[in-house]
């Protein structure tokens, strides 16, 4: 059987060494596209250019992830000292020392739309809701209007390449009752991925459900078949529910129609997943047990979610992901590292040294978990023989800069990975003062997104990344 090689994929020396079957699975999506594009007429153009989409120069998948941590970071402990190349990592980021060639610390990026201005209080809702959307949120408990998030912009163009267009993860196991931040709906505070201005993509917080969604339920060996059955079962009712949805939609008014649109979008997504399942063949079935559920220890919880992200990328189940480590304003305590106070409560430290130290310890803990994940990504070989981390761009940051003062300029941000060689990690780059959305535009460009002129409050493309 002859598999055509995507014409634009440059064959590098390492190509010969790599696992051919693995590689083909990785690029299988591209190969399959001509047939597949028929079911996505609106994306015909994108499909024809598929070889460049979300693909590294060696033909490996190019992954993009956004990981957000809550409540900002103590600036004095976060920012490195020294220059662009000879920088010395500070206490909070110490764990990245072994990985300093794999990351770049980004200075000077901001989210002006997260600043209160006439909207007043609500910096945590905005910190979260603006982080990937870059727009001003409508301040309302019920009239929820944000904007599409950058991960979804990318997923819209490249999502057809993989089984899942995107993956949304979270380690927020609990939700507080009562009002959220200062009159903002809780939707802003718990979701960073937005499919549209009015449809947040609720992240999955149970590692078991993430795993089953990616690979199927049951024990190793049974999952592909279980996943296939599940798909068939879903398909069996789609016609009926679509008819019911139309029946309902015809009778409803404006706001109601929007709710039905969300339902119908979901139905179309399920249809596409089914068609993709046929296109891509049986599911990958990792030889590891299904995670049992949400672990008790926070460190275990965060680690297993990172593992899910790694698995999703490694198996090329998706190339776009978002991960909320904790929603902005999160007040959980960190008894594992001896901190009994709540994180948010501490973050308003009143310049009390003991409290500042504790917040910095939490910042550092989050950074350590991320570094551990990057270490695993770095040690995982991708289809082209490079590391998974090399072929990724993972933005790690927070929607608040100084949690104490609720500032949104000079946000704490790390861009990890080399984007398949397109990025220049190993540096500490000062970008002056620019909207974070400028970086998003650049990331979208290199993922192959076409014709994105502006995004949020962007003023241009971010260079020197």
């Amino acid at each position, binding site marked *: 059987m002859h598999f055509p090689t995507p014409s634009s994929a440059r064959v590098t020396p390492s190509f010969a060494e790599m696992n051919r079957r693995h590689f083909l699975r990785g690029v299988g999506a591209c190969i399959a596209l001509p047939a597949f594009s028929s079911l996505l007429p609106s994306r015909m153009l994108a499909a024809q250019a598929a070889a460049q989409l979300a693909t590294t120069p060696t033909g490996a998948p190019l992954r993009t992830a956004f990981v957000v941590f809550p409540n900002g970071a103590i600036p004095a402990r976060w920012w490195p000292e020294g220059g662009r190349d000879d920088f010395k990592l500070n206490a909070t980021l110490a764990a990245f020392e072994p990985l300093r060639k794999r990351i770049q610390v980004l200075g000077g990026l901001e989210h002006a739309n997260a*600043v209160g201005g*006439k909207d*007043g209080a609500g910096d945590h809702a905005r910190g979260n809701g603006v982080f990937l959307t870059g727009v001003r949120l409508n301040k*309302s*408990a*019920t009239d*929820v209007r944000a904007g599409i998030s950058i991960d979804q912009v990318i997923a819209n163009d490249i999502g057809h390449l993989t089984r899942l267009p995107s993956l*949304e993860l979270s380690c927020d196991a*609990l939700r*507080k*009752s*009562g*009002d959220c931040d200062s*009159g903002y*709906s*809780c*939707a802003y505070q718990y*979701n960073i991925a937005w*499919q549209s201005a*009015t449809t*947040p*993509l*609720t992240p*999955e*917080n149970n590692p078991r459900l993430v795993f089953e*969604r990616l690979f199927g339920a049951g024990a190793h060996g049974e999952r592909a078949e279980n996943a296939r059955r*599940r798909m068939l*079962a*879903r398909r*069996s*009712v789609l016609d*009926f*529910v679509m*008819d*019911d*949805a139309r*029946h*309902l939609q015809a009778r409803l*008014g404006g*706001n*109601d129609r929007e*709710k039905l649109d*969300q*339902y119908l979008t*979901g139905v179309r*997504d*399920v249809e596409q997943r089914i068609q993709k399942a046929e296109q891509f063949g049986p599911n990958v079935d990792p030889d590891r047990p299904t995670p049992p*559920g949400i672990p008790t220890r926070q460190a275990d919880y965060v680690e297993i979610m990172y593992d899910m992200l790694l698995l999703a990328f490694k198996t090329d189940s998706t190339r776009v992901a978002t991960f909320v480590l904790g929603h902005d304003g999160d007040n959980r*305590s960190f*008894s594992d590292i001896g901190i*009994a*106070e*709540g994180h948010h*409560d501490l973050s*308003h430290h*009143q*310049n*009390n040294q003991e409290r500042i130290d504790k917040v910095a310890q939490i910042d550092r803990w989050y950074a350590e978990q991320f570094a551990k994940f990057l270490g695993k990504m770095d040690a995982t070989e991708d289809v082209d023989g490079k590391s998974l981390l090399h072929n990724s761009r993972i933005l790690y940051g927070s929607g608040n800069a100084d949690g104490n*003062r*609720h500032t949104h300029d000079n946000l704490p941000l790390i861009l990890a990975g080399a984007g398949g060689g397109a990025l220049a990690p190993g540096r500490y780059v000062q970008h002056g003062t620019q909207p974070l959305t400028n970086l998003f535009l650049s990331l979208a460009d290199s993922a192959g997104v076409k014709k994105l002129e502006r995004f949020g409050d962007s003023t241009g493309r971010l260079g020197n990344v």
Partner: protein
Amino acid sequence: MLRFQGSASFSLTSSLRKFGWAALLLPLLAPAAEPSLETFRREIQPVLAKYCFDCHGGGVAKGGVTLDEFSTAAALRDPKLWSHALRNVRAGIMPPADEAALPPADAEKLMQWIKLEGMGLDPAKPDPGRVTVRRLNRVEYRNTIRDLLGVDFDTQKEFPADDSGHGFDNIADVLTVSPMLLERYLDAAQTIVAGKVPVVSRVVPEVSIPGRRFATVRVDTTVPAPPKPETPVAAPMAEGAVPAPAVKSETPIAATVAQVAVAGIPAPAAPPGRGRGRSGRPPPPPPPPMTRPAPLIENEVVELSYYTPALVAATHRVEHAGKYQLIVDLTTRERYQDNLFDLNRCRLIVRADGQTLLEQDFVREGGKKFEFSFDRDWVAGDHEISFEIVPVDPQKIQFRNLRLRLNAVVVRGPFDPQHYVKPKGYEAIFPRDPPADVAGRRAFARELLGAFAARAYRRPVDPATVDRLVAVAEGVFGETKNTFEAGIAQAMVAVLASPRFLFREEDVLPLQPGETYVQVEDHALASRLSYFFWSSMPDAELLRLAGEGRLRAELPAQMRRLLGDRRALELVRNFTGQWLQARDILTVPINGNDVFLRDNASSDYDKARATFSRLRGKPESERTPAEQEEMNEARRLFTEFNARPKPQLTEPLRRAMQQETEMVFAHILKEDRSLLELIESDYTFVNDVLATHYGIADVKGGAMRKIQLAPESPRGGVLTQGTVLAVTSNPTRTSPVKRGVFILEAILGTPPAPPPPNIPSLEDAAPAAKLKTMSLRETLALHATDPKCASCHSRMDPLGLALENFNALGTWRTTDAGQPVQAAGKLITGEAFADVRELKHILATAHRRDFYYCLTEKLLTYALGRGLEYYDTITVDRIVAQLEASGGKPSVLLRGIVESAPFQQRRPPATSLATGNRSVPAAESTSMAPLTHRPRTLSD
């Protein structure tokens, strides 16, 4: 159609008459297209000038509000501005306490003008508002599935969390559907139907003989001789011990001395100074006495000890000769012991009619399940199944109380199809056998699916929908390899995945001549009722009444019925769970140790902590002997501290707290007592755990019950319930600010503005060294030094500080961090109180109306599934007036909500009402809840 009983409108007209501004009233009875500037200038402006302009006029715009710049009549119609003004005046917040008070007559005049003119509301025809189609939230989905099919599907685990708004998770606008959630819905529908609907009509009969049916035929509980004294005790080996001759007893032993302790096993004498010091570990505990427990029946099962020779048996009668299958279901059990293993084994012999089926040895394998199956050819009649335990080497030390638990023996058969039976639960779905012919099957499918869809959609279903469902079913059972039942199951899955199940579709009645708004159709009303009272679907009676068009006529009786049903607990649970955040008590992180330390300040402990953090980083080899001694001393203090009993929020305590909050609310609802008892009451609900926590004596047992509180008790009312006290605390200490905000927000309905950005640090107000020595109250007093802080903190801090006698766990205390608690304070409205009891009394009397308004707004929000808007003012006013007249009866509140315009009516479909002489709000929403310091001027 129901009409509002007149108390509210009476009070309106009577108050107008009383205050003698009939001249003003006349042109207002029907709201004009726009307010009269002339009337405003004549009647209202003088009041504003006298009491408001100091801060909101003449160029001064405190809080961004100016009230003297209305140049046109149209500018007066400003619902956003006026709803804030109305709330502030009504709650007595404006004018502030230190300014000249607004006389009641003027206040009343102003408020009436605001409603009729400033907002342009029509009291005769309140706008029911805009509603969005509601998706079932996680709780409602679970309850609906339970009531529809009798299946408990754990949506907390399987569905993502619902977003919320206005503090509730049933707000239509905020309940979205993501693609991931849609996948979950599709999968849930499959799982639920698969667990409930049999896909075949006949199965092999199956009878389960529970373990408890196995009677003891023979047991030997005689304890064997002890092992030889020289056997080392700590090693759980007792090789070589010779068992003493056992005395056999042939009959079931009921009350023989079955568990005789083996006394007198001497511990090996350790020479002084040896053994103990080397490892530093405590000596191993003495071995447990040897026992031979008799077979023990617990609920449905019987437990057989590894240590006891025993035989248990049961007889099973079969009607027909034929092939059978026996399935034995066993679990190994043990009592876990750290580091101590139990090497005892036993042999299990399973026999049927005397013939041995299985002989197998069991070792310690805690909690493992075993299943064995055996094929038998049985004649009709009685058959005996027996289990015999033979201990293997019974002299080993019994550390873990090893048992085999016989759960059940399942007898399947006979396997001859002529004896097959209907599957369990078959009749619940299929009332009769499916016909054989195509037309008959189609008709039966139509009958089954039509009825199911009508229940699931909670309204009549059109024939076309039923046709489509039958087509889905026939698509499956039309193929020879599939059963009729499988087809029906498939169609049921489709129903549960449909948006018409997941969303609450509502119809309306035709617009009546002369009316502006339409009534919702009866089935829609039935769902509004059931989801309000039960968080679940309407039951058969509600649907029947709706179908007969009699629901509105029987509304009062139905409301009583709904409230009396146990499903009404859902209203209690979900409303208090969110209004009072009682749900959060199960997970709120409060660190008992830190709370304890704060209340029991210990300089020794502080010293130990300091030593520890100073020396921890230094390797042991580098410490001086003095430092090492210090470190040892610190360790000793820690150990001692850790060993002291300290209150903790244990699981049972958290549950008891949650139940207390729910049961108090349920009690008031059920007995129709005054809602003011939510604030102040001489009773509460506790069990032993919670009573101990509260320091209430003489409550025994885990059952929650109502208790009468002593007159001097600070408890009674939600403010002093463990739930509220803990969920408004930080993990290590109380937060008077959070507690104050809670009272303003959840009790008085006057939430403070959110904190401004860039809050100055406390160091700007006092030097760090001084801060360290200040009490919490003194620290909070710093708020008064900055007018920007003081404007809100002077409202919330005194309220929160009044609760300082309760620590973060909700226990009573008199000191905080070594300083005496001072709970006395003064409300911004002027009332002084000495302690929390006096505060509660003030809230329940002087601020009664604020509480009625607050509770009404919260419950109405919950009932409607939308945020309240300024046009709901008339509705809320009416309910509060009725509530006040009744002395705060919950029945009046609930009825007021159910009979209100927004609950009963909708805006007419597909027409814009923004015509004519009334201003009807567009999609833009003016929330009436938050009282924010939004910078606004009339120009924006």
